[in-house]
């Protein structure tokens, strides 16, 4: 099947087999590393992307569901030279250990702050509830998201 969509602001088009998921396409032919496989059952948040701005697990999403839509991944947020305020805040708080969960968590946090620029801690917890972090760095991540929100409002 032929699928075309916008990936982190740039148009992409690919020919892919029926049954391919968006995550398989992103990590395979589209050669991204940010979206990660965690469970394949929408239960851990490692593969979170935005679809037209809303967070959505990509591990079960058929690739053709992205047709004509706007897909965002952690690679679209910022670069080491020009980090997104969330990435800067995660660096400042050293919010992570193994790092496997971070791409998905940043994607959900970015969507939250776009929707709600001044969330309280409960709102951040709720937005990150779909995400698992087995290393136990959640408190640092909560602080980092609130820190980024302050920076973005300033």
């Amino acid at each position, binding site marked *: 099947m032929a699928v075309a969509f916008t990936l982190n602001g740039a148009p992409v088009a690919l020919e892919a087999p029926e049954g391919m998921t968006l995550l398989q396409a992103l990590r395979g032919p589209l050669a991204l590393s940010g979206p990660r496989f965690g469970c394949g059952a929408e239960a851990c948040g490692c593969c979170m992307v935005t679809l037209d701005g809303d967070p959505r697990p990509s591990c079960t999403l058929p690739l053709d569901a992205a047709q004509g839509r706007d897909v965002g991944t952690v690679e679209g947020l910022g670069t080491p030279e020009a*980090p997104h305020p969330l990435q800067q805040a995660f660096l400042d708080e050293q919010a992570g250990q193994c790092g496997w969960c971070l791409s998905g968590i940043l994607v959900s946090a970015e969507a939250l702050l776009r929707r709600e620029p001044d969330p309280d801690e409960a709102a951040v917890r709720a937005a990150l509830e779909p995400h698992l972090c087995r290393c136990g760095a959640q408190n640092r991540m909560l602080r980092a998201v609130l820190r980024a929100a302050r920076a973005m409002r300033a």
Partner: protein
Amino acid sequence: MNLAFHAGAAGNAPALPGSLRAEPLLSRWLRFSAEGHVTVMPGKVEIGQGILTALAQIAADELDVAPGRVRVAAASTPGSPNEGVTSGSLSVQESGIAIRHACAEARALHLAAAAGRAGLRPEQFVVQDGRFLGPGGIEIGSYWAQAEAVPLEMEARGDVAPKPRAGRQVAGRSAPRLDLPDKLFGRARFLHDLRWPGLLHARAVRPPGRDATLLELPGAALPGDAVPVRHGNFLCVVAADEWAAEAAAALLARRIRWAVRDSLPEGTDLRGWLDAAPAEASVVAERQEPAAPAAHQLSACFTRPFLTHASIGTCCAVALWQEEALEVWTHSQGIYNLRADLALTLGLSPERIVLHHVEGAGCYGHNGADDVALDAALAARAHPGRPVRVVWSRAEELGWGPLSPAGLIRIDAAVDADGRLCRWDAELRGNGHSSRPGRAAHPTLLAAAHLDPPFPLPVAIDAPLAGGGGAQRNAVPGYAVPALRVTLHRLREMPLRSSALRGLGALLNVFAIESVMEELAAASGQDAVDFRLRHLAHDARAQAVLREAAALCGWPRRPAGDGTGTGIAVARYKNSGAWCAVAAEVEAAEVVRCRRLWIAADLGEVINPDGAANQLEGGAIQATSIALKEAVRFDRQGVTSDSWEAYPVLRFSEVPAVELRLLPRPDEPPLGAGEASLGPTIAAIAGGIHAALGLRPRQLPFTPDTLAAAME
């Protein structure tokens, strides 16, 4: 714990510190480049704990170079020193101390060379970011200019003292993690992200039970160009596209016919199985000093279920087989050990196998990282000349990796009329906590037991207590007691492959010991903290962390409301590592939640305080998850808790707030940070449940079901 402690090959320095004992050649640990950087080469590996950052800090400090000049090489065979396994919270003690001393000796060699050339004495130099400045600030040389001229191919002598603590500028101050930026910008860093031309993708198709025979492999057409690879009961599919490999594995899993036999005990009666299974008995500790008669006594049995690692990313390996030699990229914790088991399984000499460490997702013990390396090697052997990557599914990760074994401990203890402990008897039963590769006559790798002919899986062992122990880790209470006997009954059958998970036996033992201490304190009318302090008079550092945690939480802490309560616990990890005390506030409604944790720890010298705090807190949060939610479930054929639904772990809404204090002990030896907080956290939560509900938890996890049983 698996290091062979022997003198250097030349036998010249039997007292070399850390891993220098086994690997005394300086050139194995560091090299300078003319371009102005130094590469340190630890045998320990990054498993999400931040060790590479701490090791770089140590090197920068000892060499007097800017941290940015230090590069840390990923471990590989045979290029890296053999430091055994990255486990046991020992990496700073073993690798860090080796690097500190190796750097001190390398610095001395370089300064001696510069001094000799200039007709000066080494003491006349200062080292400034790797440059050697003589009298008047004149640069006489540098590590970089002398990189070729000063050979490091010599054994450490052990006669150069590292800098005194006051001279350290980098180690001891928080430093940002070197690996974090890649992980925040979605850069390719994990093994799963490597992209090579010609890379093939494979997925295993596991049997439907632990004891199963593959009857028929249908010749159905597979998606893409996928082809099966079969050896006995081991089956995988290999394809050029990852999508095709996953689709083919799913298709085959539906079509294959297996014969499955019951081989597991009844999962609903773990205690019955633990008591009935054949076991090998040994005495862990015994002392019989005169004791006063018992005034209050307690007998209690504490149990824990099988647990799994539940890493968020799944296990992965890449293998390349060509000309009867094997190269593997792996996130194993012990690459030399893995090499030994791959050699045994594949009939290759170890010299024909090269392993490279590449980071995987967070690792908390012996998970499937070694197993998947054999999967990849078997797939690659069928496709010589092409690298093959295997990634496990979530079901494999939760269902087929080595498990942390179920166990029980019966404690019979008493206090005398003065409220002092007078007797302590403990009996442990369960499987051993180590099936790590490279230590037995047969390989311990998952697929080795599925080959034709199969290798029998060695039954898990427990390291001796002097090496940290397994099931008996922390089974001997740190409290003063005149009469004591602790015995271990290690099971001689292993229906579910068991091995090391963060904390090993300390999870159950600290929970049990601290619960007994609480109850004896209550029975004899003493405050739980005072009672412990009274029995820790010989261990001022244990008293200090307990006092600190008590102060942090405001002990004795009044309940914040109905159904809430605070518990407190303390332990010295392995009875030889870091001290840690934890207080936990729990809220018991339909389920028990842990709302707040207060943690105080004494880790000895701390290289990266922020990194150590991250490790301690992470351990406490993992322990909260273990305490409140986790249990592997199985039927007579296999593990059934192989999804996040069936094996839930703590989510954001359930994570307690944490307040943490490190006691400054910069002049004491480093003691490790990764595992000290787990046992005390579980025990403190149990104490909090008692404070909130009035019942004494005896069985992990503390769910409504097990707590209802405790009420009866």
